[in-house]
């Protein structure tokens, strides 16, 4: 029962007037979705603010237990991945499929590297017992004097964990983009999904830009 105008492209859904309306609608909804993401993290940022103001000295001392170099490396990796993501969109706009796929693969690899570094950080913390709440058992000389350090690690693990989950979801989406672009479903005529996932990816990057100084560079 769907009567497609032969002039209208196959990606145009029947309930839209034209391609432009469809594109504008997707973009609008994506920004609204970004707003919900910001508010999700906002709740956790509030928890961070509350407990940092309760335990200012503990936060400063506990942050020294984090590995700044790994954090910095991850920051660089993620910012670079944002660049490659933007380049992938630029390439598809120019109808350069090959470059676009290459850039998407690069973005995917950077995301993987990010999670790899995160894994190294987490596994070290698991080994020494710098863990949330009841599981905290670290008793090193640099931590014996700390007042409730497990609170710091609760917030650290929840915030970076939720962010890591977003990176993983982003990787799934980017993998799907690689597949669709390679198959030729996305072209300079229609690349809305790539642009939308790009917006999402920049948000993931941006959240890390806030997490990095708030956890690794305080005091």
């Amino acid at each position, binding site marked *: *029962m769907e009567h497609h105008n032969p002039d209208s492209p196959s990606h145009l859904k*029947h*309930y839209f007037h034209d391609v432009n*309306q469809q594109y*504008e*609608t997707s973009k*609008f*909804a994506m920004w*609204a*979705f970004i*707003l*919900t*993401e910001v*508010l*999700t993290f*906002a*709740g*956790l940022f*509030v*928890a961070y603010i*509350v*407990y940092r103001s*309760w*335990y200012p000295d503990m936060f400063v001392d506990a942050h020294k237990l984090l590995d700044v170099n790994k954090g910095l490396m991850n920051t660089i990796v993620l910012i670079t991945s944002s660049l490659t993501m933007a380049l992938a969109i630029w390439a598809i706009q120019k109808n350069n499929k090959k470059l676009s796929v290459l850039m998407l693969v690069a973005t995917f690899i950077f995301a993987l590297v990010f999670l790899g570094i995160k894994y190294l950080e987490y596994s070290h913390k698991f080994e020494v017992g710098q863990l*949330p*709440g*009841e*599981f905290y058992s670290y008793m090193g000389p640099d931590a014996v004097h700390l*007042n*409730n350090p*497990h*609170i710091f690690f*609760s*917030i650290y693990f*929840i915030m970076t964990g939720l962010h890591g989950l977003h990176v993983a979801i982003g990787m799934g989406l980017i993998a799907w983009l690689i597949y669709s672009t390679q198959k030729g479903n996305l072209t300079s005529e229609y690349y809305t999904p790539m642009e939308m996932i790009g917006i999402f990816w920049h948000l993931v990057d941006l959240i890390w830009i806030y997490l990095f100084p708030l956890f690794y560079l305080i005091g």
Partner: protein
Amino acid sequence: MSENTKQNYLNHPKGIMSWLLTLDHKRIGLMYLFSGILFFFLGGLLALVMRFELAAPGNDIISNEVYNNAYTLHGAIMIFLFIIPAIPGALGNILLPLMVGAKDVAFPRLNLASFYIYSFGALFAMYTIINGGVDTGWTFYTPYSTQSTSNVVPMTLGIFIIGFSSILTGLNFIATVHKMRIPGLTWYKLPLFVWALYGTSLVQITATPVLAITMVLLMLERFLGIGIFDPALGGDPVLYQHFFWFYSHPAVYIMILPAFGIISEIIPVHSRKKIWGYKFIAYSTLSIAFIGFLVWGHHMFTSGQSVFSQIVFSFITYFVGIPTGVKIFSWILTMYKGQVSFTPPMFYALAFLFLFTIGGLTGIFLGAVALDIHLHDTYFVVAHFHYVMQGGTIVAFLGGLHHWWPKSFGVMYNQTIANIAALGVFIGFNGTFFPQFLLGLRGMPRRYATYDEQFVELHSYSTFWSGILGISIFIAVMNLFWSFIKKNKVDPGSNPWGGMTLEWTHTSSPPHPHNFEEEPVLQHGPYDYDKVIVEKTYNK
């Protein structure tokens, strides 16, 4: 010419899969409607069990433990499974695209996904019931919720999942309002129900993420003992209350704004008069949505807040009264010198005006710190929010159902029975809940299965009328379903009440599968009764 034999969204396409996998907003709306009504009955049944337990002091029917489960599940089901998802999900889904002249919502597949996410979350809630319930109260306050051995995790997980459904529906509606309107349908020509859904959706997408994260923190607290809400580990249980009410106070407006929208449609149509103060009503919706984010602290006057915070929250709370008052006065002025007909939708709208006004005014009482400290956690609070939620939202929902029933199904119900049931709801409701204001003032605390002798009279009175209320709602809903039975079928025509919005003027009852046979062209505003004459297609 019979409308019913034509192709419409109910009879085309056919087959169970065409319903389960439908992308049609009207069919998705109906699925929300019927699941919502189901949960409404379930929640209502729990309420009646509680009321009958309270008919006399002592444990007559159920134990204290069962009572704790009953009030928790009653609240959680009514709020998270019925009112929040089902009213925008049902009436909003069916009407929003029709009202803006679109063929569908902006993202039909996402819309179907929202419904299934909601159903999936509801399964967890049902599991909670089968597995022995949950006894923390619908607010899941820490520290008890981290210690209770009842099913806190399945229930909060269910609420977490339903939250996503709520967010996605909100996103879909906002995009639809912004981008799917037909040419010429400018913001100030939108029906006020659309404005109301828009305000609701804004709150849904901004507040619900905070609830989601709160539920995650609560579950982590239980699983991992993260200590964020646990004073023994250096955390703070009051922070939970802040998080919870930062969502749940705006959620009150998720629940009431669609009701305001319904009333703004019913009153002008059944008074055949242009709505008074269109822009005031539209902007009051947005200002309620905004102010709603700044008042959560008034739930916590007795939680050890600083006096300064109390004053600030109390002060801002009063502000909610201004846009709300603007709406009430506008509706009353709309009726003034109009041709008011006492149809069932109008009966419900009038009942709404009385009941919601009482609910709103007692909200001002509770916003005053000194009074709230006296009334906190008493039946006064119970009566107040039932006047708002049931007297307001559910009465408006019933009114909306009666208003759009002939449009949605192409059949007219028995109006006399509908009016009698509406009267029963109004009287039964007041009989049930007005005594609870008095109980609260005299110090009866909420959430107890028993009470002192001095409260017997008011409690038994409340229980008696709750039976009348329950029967009346049952009759009202059954009367609607009765209209489906073949021999009762009455064709209401495309525009039984003489409405001026697109769903009445430009499509049949029930509507075409793609909403309109051809794209509608806007000829007049939504309430231009002063300029254009619209005939009613149904006269009793």
